[in-house]
């Protein structure tokens, strides 16, 4: 499918494609009510309540006024609908603002000012500096004579650096005035959401240019929501408009995530529903039997001899209505309310503000805070998540000479400085490649200082380092690069750029030295993407060793290489490259193939080593969270050695003898299978030992394992607390999350870059680090934090509290609903099983919505343990994991309590108010106030810390109950008239209340006390320790000893890789029955990497021992 866009053709495209009206709205004014209602009623709970409310409209069966269900139902619906409407209204406002923005568009050859929403496909749109791009445009002209413009794409992909965009070659040099009259056709794909690809062609009509197709790439476009920067003006042809732009297409409503707590609440609701049905059936039958045997004798009831056909149903339906309060109607609203408060607490938290950038943490998803407290697996990215993603050039190896090994900083290495100043050709070439082989744009400020705009942090580090070594990349003027070396300017012309892709793992530029006309290919890339292409005869051993050594120190390595090209070789290749560049299908693959033809016989110049420092507090955070029983998996695109180093330095894995690394590798299905089996066996054997066993797998083996040994791999995933997955692709990251989720583990994925987005969306909880790789991950995530170390607080403090609070709140909600329902059921046994409601409509309505909701809502302030204690004893998170505070057995406790309390209230009420006092309204109010009193004390006994607000809510609510009922008792028309005054005047009323409270709470208190003192949970013990003050002093000893971070985190201080050997030993012992020291050559271990570099390195390590 293709789309043909005719430039400046006003008639043609207008009908075919949508206009540029952006709409993010979910509703319109007309469909709001039906659509919103439909959405709300697609929830089972709401359907249920609606059914109940409708049944209540039938006076024959309703025990109470229909208002008692309709009122709360309408209230709850109104709250949800208002929230939706408000959100939608804000979306509408922002849409409107974008749609009505004025832009300059060419119409009938004249530039006109129109609203952005009126742009049509094919229109030529003019933009000035700092304006927002209104739709997807193909550039046709800019103010820059070289046809370049700069855009900021932060809103699109979150990357904050400037990107260069160029006009297609066909449009180059067209006069400013002529752009208005330009005609032509752009052949482009139908709209999609890929913001990195735009494979299209442009053909201009005469008189502009020859009939040639001119290929277009994403580089020739500027996309909606980007900003134009550093460019006076541009003009472009609208190709995609409105909701069909790349941004519009990628917009989507993500699947709402359901927390484990929500799932459990749904399950419990289902169980209660079943229970309710059983009760209804039993009571219904009993009621009908009573009616047929007893009621006929009760002449005053005057049952007709023959009832209507539905007579048998009447009593069961009455009980259904009576029992409908068993499922608390208010629970959803309560939960929504507290959940948004949990989210606010995260947003507000001062201790989770990144001080460097002063970005606070943010909870985008307000509904899943409880899940944070239940995390069992954390899958983390490495670069930018564990590390700072600030790249610093540390060491290099040029022509076999290592620089920077002594001082840890090559830029200060005297030898290197000397080599630079003496003009050693190797070094000069090396620096030239460092300075030129990149896509960096130097930007000169007014003061003359040069700053660099780079897309990759590595390139930035390299160019900066080259500049420090006197090879300053000063200017990029279209295709001319200027380098200032030792005060002399050298100019190069860039002929082609062979871009970096993650498959190729290298990038190259073809440059022409402007002085002597020589053409060079300059390449840089991963070692395995460069070293195999070294020219025959070059000794690559030192470079391999350098790479090995550097990556053992946790440094990122890049190999630099070059080759002089023959004039005609380049010319031939250049043609192929152009052709590949204009293909529409599989362009990327074709390009890679063509690039391959040039990138061979390279002369390797050296290896650079760039340090990416660990973020502050990463080792402690990981250690604390591991103590909390959370398993860590590191998923990185980086090399195995680098990953292992970083893992060691941040406590991810422990060095020998505590830790053991098991390697899964292999190139073929068989190899991987065998390796996997062996690791699995070892893992099973060592689970009983107190040892940190981790497995390491690379992307290739993972691919095979996931495809052919999914079962075995899943077993392994369950067994291992730690895993390192190297060289994995974004989709593999997501697959790993999927595997853990399928085993019913709660997973949290944390990452910072675009490559983590899929994993973040897949995981139960996605956390994004709003870091240097842009905001892409943070946008897709449920939570965004500034630094990895905030994860500790997010999980242990916010997650844990949220879970505890919700666990209490939801169970309490069921408890209070069951309580009043049980009383109704008991009452039905003394009212001839006829379905009379003991309580009046007002009380029933206010009970659920008002009397019992407010005290429990303040439980969002409850803290069972102080933050400090939790941080000291992260193991306490165990109680949150796997739902240990909210599950059928804890719920059974609450169920039992409500049954017990119902019996207490009912029995005491009917005995204390027997005979002459057994007036209906009075007994009803006695029972109700008994419930309210018990509620207050139940909340009190379950609250761990009382703030002013809690006291206010609990006791204030009790007072409010009386005030409200006094007010109602003062209204002659109400059924309650004078009742409450009469009751409050009777001493026996207060004595009864007192009795209910003590009978109800006494056993609860006694059991709680007994458990608390003689069978304390860990939480109880810590509470006691924390609050009694005494033994807490001794707790200090147990506190994790603050590790001397310097020692572990800065592997750079270790100069010789030999020192690290003990760390590598575990790798060799991954065969359970092997005696590690005895083997001599790597070949005996078939599960060793077949890749020569790795195996040689391991055998070398071994020999060094």
């Amino acid at each position, binding site marked *: 499918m293709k789309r043909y866009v005719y430039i400046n053709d006003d008639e043609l495209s207008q009908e075919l494609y949508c206009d540029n009206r952006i709409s993010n709205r979910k509703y319109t004014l007309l469909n709001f009510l039906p659509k919103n209602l439909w959405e709300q009623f697609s929830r089972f709970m709401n359907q249920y309540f609606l059914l109940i409310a409708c049944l209540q409209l039938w006076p024959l069966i309703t025990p109470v006024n229909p208002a008692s269900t309709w009122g709360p139902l309408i209230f709850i619906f109104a709250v949800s609908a208002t929230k939706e409407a408000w959100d939608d209204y804000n979306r509408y406002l922002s849409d409107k603002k974008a749609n009505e923005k004025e832009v300059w568009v060419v119409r009938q050859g004249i530039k006109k000012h129109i609203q952005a929403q009126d742009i049509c496909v094919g229109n030529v749109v003019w933009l000035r500096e700092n304006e927002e791009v209104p739709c997807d445009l193909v550039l046709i002209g800019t103010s820059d004579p070289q046809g370049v413009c700069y855009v900021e794409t932060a809103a699109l992909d979150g990357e904050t650096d400037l990107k260069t965009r160029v006009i297609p070659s066909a449009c180059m040099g067209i006069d400013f005035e002529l752009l208005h009259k330009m005609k032509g056709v752009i052949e482009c794909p139908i709209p999609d959401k890929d913001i990195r690809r735009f494979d299209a062609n442009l053909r201009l009509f005469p008189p502009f240019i020859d009939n040639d197709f001119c290929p277009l790439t994403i580089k020739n476009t500027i996309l909606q929501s980007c900003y134009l920067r550093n460019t006076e003006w541009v003009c472009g042809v609208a190709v995609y408009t409105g909701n069909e732009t790349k941004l519009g297409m990628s917009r989507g409503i993500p699947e709402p995530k359901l927390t484990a707590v929500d799932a459990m609440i749904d399950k419990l609701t289902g169980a209660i529903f079943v229970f309710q049905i059983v009760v209804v059936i039993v009571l219904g039958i009993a009621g009908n039997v009573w009616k047929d045997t007893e009621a006929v004798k009760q002449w005053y009831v005057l049952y007709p001899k023959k009832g209507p056909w539905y007579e048998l149903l009447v009593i069961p339906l009455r009980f259904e209505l009576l029992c409908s309060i068993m499922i608390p109607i208010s629970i959803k609203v309560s939960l929504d309310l507290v959940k948004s408060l949990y989210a606010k*607490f995260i947003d507000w938290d001062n201790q989770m503000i990144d001080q460097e950038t002063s970005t606070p943490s943010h909870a985008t998803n307000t509904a899943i805070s409880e899940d944070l407290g239940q995390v069992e697996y954390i899958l983390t990215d490495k670069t930018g998540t564990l590390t700072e993603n600030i790249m610093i050039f540390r060491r290099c190896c040029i022509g076999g000479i290592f620089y920077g090994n002594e001082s840890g900083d090559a830029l200060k290495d005297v030898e290197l400085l000397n080599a630079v100043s003496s003009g050693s050709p190797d070094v000069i070439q090396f620096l030239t490649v460092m300075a030129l082989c990149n896509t960096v744009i130097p930007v000169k400020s007014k003061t003359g200082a040069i700053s660099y705009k780079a897309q990759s942090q590595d390139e930035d580090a390299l160019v900066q380092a080259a500049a420090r070594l006197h090879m300053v990349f000063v200017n990029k003027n279209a295709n001319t690069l200027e380098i200032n070396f030792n005060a002399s300017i050298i100019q190069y012309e860039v002929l082609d750029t062979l871009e970096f892709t993650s498959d190729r793992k290298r990038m190259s530029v073809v440059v022409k030295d402007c002085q002597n006309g020589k053409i060079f290919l300059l390449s840089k890339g991963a070692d395995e993407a460069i070293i195999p292409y070294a020219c025959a005869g070059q000794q690559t051993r030192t470079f391999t060793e350098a790479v090995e050594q550097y990556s053992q120190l946790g440094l990122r390595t890049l190999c630099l290489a070059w080759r002089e090209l023959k004039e005609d070789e380049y010319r031939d290749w250049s043609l192929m490259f152009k052709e590949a560049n204009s293909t529409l299908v599989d362009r990327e693959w074709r390009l890679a193939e063509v690039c391959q033809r040039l990138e061979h016989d390279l002369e390797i110049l050296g290896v650079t080593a760039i340090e990416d420092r660990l973020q502050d507090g990463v080792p402690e955070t990981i250690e604390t969270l591991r103590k909390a029983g959370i398993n860590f998996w590191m998923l990185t695109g980086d090399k195995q050695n680098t990953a292992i180093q970083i893992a060691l330095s941040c406590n991810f894995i422990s060095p020998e003898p505590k830790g053991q690394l098991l390697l899964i590798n292999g190139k073929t299905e068989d190899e991987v299978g065998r390796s996997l089996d062996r690791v699995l066996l070892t893992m099973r054997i060592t689970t009983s030992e107190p040892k940190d066993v981790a497995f390491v797998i690379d992307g290739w083996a993972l691919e095979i394992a996931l495809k052919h040994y999914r079962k075995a791999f899943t077993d392994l995933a369950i067994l291992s607390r730690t895993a390192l997955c190297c060289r994995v692709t974004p989709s593999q990251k997501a697959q790993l999350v999927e595997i853990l989720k399928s085993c019913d583990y709660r997973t949290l994925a944390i990452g910072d870059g675009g490559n983590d987005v899929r994993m973040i969306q897949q995981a139960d909880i996605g956390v994004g680090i709003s870091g240097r790789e842009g905001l892409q991950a943070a946008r897709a995530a449920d939570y965004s934090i500034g630094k990895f170390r905030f994860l500790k607080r997010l999980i242990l403090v916010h997650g844990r509290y949220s879970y505890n609070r919700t666990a209490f709140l939801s169970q309490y909600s069921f408890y209070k609903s069951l309580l009043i329902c049980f009383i109704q059921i008991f009452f039905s046994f003394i009212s001839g099983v006829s379905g009379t409601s003991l309580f009046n409509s007002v009380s029933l309505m206010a009970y659920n919505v008002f009397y019992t909701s407010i005290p429990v809502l303040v439980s969002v302030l409850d803290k069972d343990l102080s933050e400090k204690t939790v941080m000291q004893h992260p193991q306490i998170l165990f109680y949150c994991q796997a739902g240990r505070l909210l599950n059928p057995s804890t719920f059974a406790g609450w169920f039992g309590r409500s049954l017990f309390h119902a019996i207490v209230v009912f029995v005491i009420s009917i005995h204390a108010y027997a005979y002459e006092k057994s007036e209906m309204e009075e007994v009803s109010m006695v029972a109700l106030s008994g419930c309210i009193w018990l509620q207050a004390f139940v909340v009190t006994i379950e609250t761990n810390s009382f703030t002013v607000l809690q006291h206010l809510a609990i006791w204030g609510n009790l007072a409010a109950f009386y005030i409200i009922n006094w007010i109602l008792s003062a209204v002659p028309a109400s059924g309650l008239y004078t009742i409450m005054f009469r009751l409050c005047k009777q001493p026996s009323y207060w004595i009864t209340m007192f009795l209910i409270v003590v009978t109800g709470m*006494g056993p609860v208190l006694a059991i709680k006390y007994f458990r608390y*003192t003689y069978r304390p949970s860990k939480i109880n013990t810590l509470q006691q320790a924390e609050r009694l003050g005494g033994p807490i002093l001794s707790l200090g000893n147990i506190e994790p000893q603050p590790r001397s971070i310097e020692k572990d985190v800065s592997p750079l201080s270790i100069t010789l890789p030999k020192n690290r050997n003990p760390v590598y030993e575990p790798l060799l012992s991954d065969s359970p029955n092997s005696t590690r020291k005895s083997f001599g050559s790597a070949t005996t271990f078939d599960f060793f990497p077949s890749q020569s570099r790795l195996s040689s390195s391991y055998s070398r390590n071994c020999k060094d021992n």
Partner: protein
Amino acid sequence: MDPNGGSSSAGAADGASDPAAARRRHSKKPKYSRFTQQELPACKPILTPGWVISSFIFVGIIFIPIGLASLFASERVVEIVHAMTRTVTFLVPKQMKSPVYIYYQLDNFYQNHRRYVKGRSDKQLRSRASENDTSSCDPEDVTSNKSAIVPCGLIAWSLFNDTYGFSVNNTLLGVSKKNIAWKSDQQHKFGSDVYPKNFQSGGLIGGAKLNSSIPLSQQVDLIVWMRTAALPTFRKLYGKIEVDLEANTELTVVIENNYNTYSFGGKKKLVLSTTSWIGGKNDFLGIAYITLGGLSLFLAISFLLIYIIKPRPLGDPTFLSWNRNPAGHFNFN
């Protein structure tokens, strides 16, 4: 009565103090407040043996006297209960100070039956204007010629209609019907302009008839009857005897037995009773209080004994299993 409520222990000032100043410098965005930081000062009581034991003792000490007082009050009430036959003669066991309340007690009578409780129209009772508001009164709503029954519904229709005549030594004792109905009912629930109409005029006669010249607000028996009882055994006030009855007085009651309780096997009883501060004779509260107080003391003592015999230091960190197992491979139980 909350054992936790008062015991504010060390936690109150916890947390909020130290890093606050340091944070304030940077916190441009989220405003610092104790609420937003979840650092509101809180009292964090825990269940220490001291608190729990003393609260149980406290309950015991408070409950037993209250129970005794209630029981004593209940014992002082003189109550005579008699099954109703035609004429009863009995001795007053103790002196009964006036007013002596006369109740009729019905057993196994479901005034709380759903069909029954719904059988009334409060609007109709309240004002003449709503005379035809009988929708909730089915089956006793209208007569066969569709004119409204006032008061409509099953409750009024089944009005109790036994009558009692009391005499001491052949002298008739006056039974006062004054103030036996709630004043609020007479003033606001039963209209003074609403007169009985078409009442008990159908084929089925339920209970008592009403004098159609007396407004509903003065029909005290009806008003009492219409305060439906929540329990199937209930007493309703019939009247008061405004003179003291001395001990051993021979009281003769002549009963006109009209009300049908035979069909459902219910019993009718006549109750004469004085009253006290906790109401009529009801031992339940007293017994419950004494039992509960005793249980509380028993619990308190057992807790105390357990505490003395097997003391358990609170908050001992050695109970944290992960402290016992150094490798970090803790197992919970």
